[in-house]
């Protein structure tokens, strides 16, 4: 039971490898490779978020701010100071980690709602700063001219190339996180979710675990933000607002936050919903997101990854 189930991971990796070829051959899904880049970027955030929420049981409603910190750090350092994008990414991740530590250390000691509200408030403040500090961030107009990435001297100049870069990173992060969950650290996280008092009594430093996971999730969001900035070559504040934090929440709730697979599935479905499928509903979009979130919370508390269990339960009856 402490083994990674290798087959699903292999199938998943194979799917990722052949997807762009399929998209190339099937006209109906020709532009899906581009969308899949976004799915990958969002996966990085949702994997961290599901570890934080589903496993450690802590709520963050400000994940968009860490995404923004990553994006703005790379954008500023590359456009203003000509720093190498890869170094910028590391700086962005370090910055997000620092901010997460400062924000999380006090609020994670408190329980329940407090981290939710602290991250929510923090997210809104960061959004306001992006908008108001026009001299640095370009204000509502944002920052343009962010250079693309180069890898081993090759310029990444197509959606396919970014696709492979982003998804290589996602699979790496995915495996790392799964290992983590199946180790003692993951066990401690699930224990914290079940009972903080008992975890403490078993020698688990609850505050330390919570802060580490929060920092991990912030680092992943920041990395995602940097990748986004280099892929788009342009950013503005509206990408990093409260509604994006909520959208991330919908992703992991829909996929199921008690399993890392849920983060991937949720990111995939919600991204395709918002990029492709929801256009038919126009103004109903917001209501549909709300309904998805509510119905999942009520009827599928374990998200879509919990569906097989429910079916098995029915089968037994």
């Amino acid at each position, binding site marked *: 039971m402490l083994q990674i189930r290798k087959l699903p991971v292999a199938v998943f990796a194979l799917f990722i490898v052949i997807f762009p070829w399929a998209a190339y051959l099937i006209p109906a899904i020709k532009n899906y490779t581009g969308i899949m880049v976004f799915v990958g970027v969002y996966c990085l955030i949702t994997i961290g978020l599901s570890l934080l*929420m589903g496993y450690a*049981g802590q*709520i963050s*409603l400000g994940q968009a701010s860490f995404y923004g910190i990553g994006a703005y750090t790379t954008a500023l350092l590359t456009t203003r100071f000509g720093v190498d994008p890869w170094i910028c990414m590391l700086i962005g991740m370090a910055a997000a980690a620092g901010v997460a530590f400062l*924000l999380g250390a*006090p*609020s994670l000691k*408190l*329980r*329940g*709602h*407090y981290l*939710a*509200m*602290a991250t*929510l*408030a*923090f997210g*809104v*403040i960061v959004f*306001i*700063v992006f*908008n*108001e500090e026009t001299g640095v961030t370009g204000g509502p107009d944002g920052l343009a001219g962010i250079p693309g990435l180069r890898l081993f001297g090759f310029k990444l100049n197509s959606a396919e190339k970014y696709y492979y870069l982003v998804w290589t990173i996602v699979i790496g992060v995915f495996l790392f996180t799964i290992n983590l969950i199946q180790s003692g650290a993951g066990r401690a996280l699930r224990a914290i979710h079940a009972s903080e008092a008992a975890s403490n009594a078993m020698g688990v430093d609850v505050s330390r675990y919570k802060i580490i996971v929060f920092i991990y999730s912030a680092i992943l969001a920041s990395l995602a933000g940097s990748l986004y900035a280099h892929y788009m070559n342009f950013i503005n504040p509206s990408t990093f607002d*409260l509604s994006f934090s*909520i959208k991330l*929440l919908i992703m992991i*709730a829909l996929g199921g936050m008690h399993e890392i697979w849920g983060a991937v599935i949720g990111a995939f479905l919600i991204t395709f919903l918002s990029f492709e499928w929801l256009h038919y509903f126009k*103004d*109903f*979009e*917001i*209501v*549909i*997101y*709300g*309904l998805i*979130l*509510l119905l999942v*919370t*009520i009827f599928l*508390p374990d998200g879509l990854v919990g569906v097989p269990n429910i079916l098995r339960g029915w089968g037994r009856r």
Partner: protein
Amino acid sequence: MEKISLASQLLQYLITGLTVGSIYAMVALGFNIIYNVTEIINLAQGEFVMLGGLIMSSLHASLGAPILPAFILTVVLVTLVGALLDRLAIQPIRRPSVLTLIIATIAASIIIKGFAMLGWGKNPYDLPAFSGREPIHILGAIIQPQYLWVIGFLVVVVIVMTLFFEKSITGKAMRACADNPNAASLVGINVKRMVLLSFSLSAAIGAVAGIIVTPISLMTYDRGAMLAVKGFGAVVLGGLGSFPGAILGGIILGSIESFGSGLISSGYKDAFALIVLLAVLFFKPSGLLGNIEVSKIKRF
């Protein structure tokens, strides 16, 4: 244009702050009523305010209903929304936890906001001020009569709430649920009904806040989230669960926002309240009038 002295300017900020603060105080009261009975932070609290403003605007300004019936009907309709929120989003949850309950209220707030956008569109709506827009001049400060209505309504709401929770049997029963739901149900109090009632009551107060603030700041479908966050700021500042704290917190927060945007930067108007919220969470999470022992004992 006549030059306004610094003193009158400060007075102006103070009065604006009290007015805005009264609205935050009402949102905060709504949070606390629900929290005290259920320990849920209802993030849809701001949507009640938004609905109050928009429904009243349609009934009174667009359809021409007289002010008093329109007022009452608006409050009744929003109260129903509050009750529906409890019945459709909160009660059906089978494994309630802080996490799922917060998510459910977020979902509800998105749905309400979405329907508001479908119904009213994205444009702001206005309401005529209750007693005209002829400003009153006091010591060089300009006061809209509506400001006084807002502050007056806060006083009325506080008096009514105090009487309700101190004197009425239902109010006492709700307080009993807050102290100990199991014991309350043992002595025959219908806890589910009390939860429903707390949502309805919070919605009603939210509706009142929305109605009285719309003549000052207009109302749009997407104002709820920010109102909720700031109202929660007031809750935390005053101390989670404390009614006097909610009022104090609301008024302090409104004043900080008013002075901050007047004296420091208007672009950061929305940030001041949130910075205060973070500062309180970090340095005095029990708030001004809250009790940390109590918050530790609470289940969540």
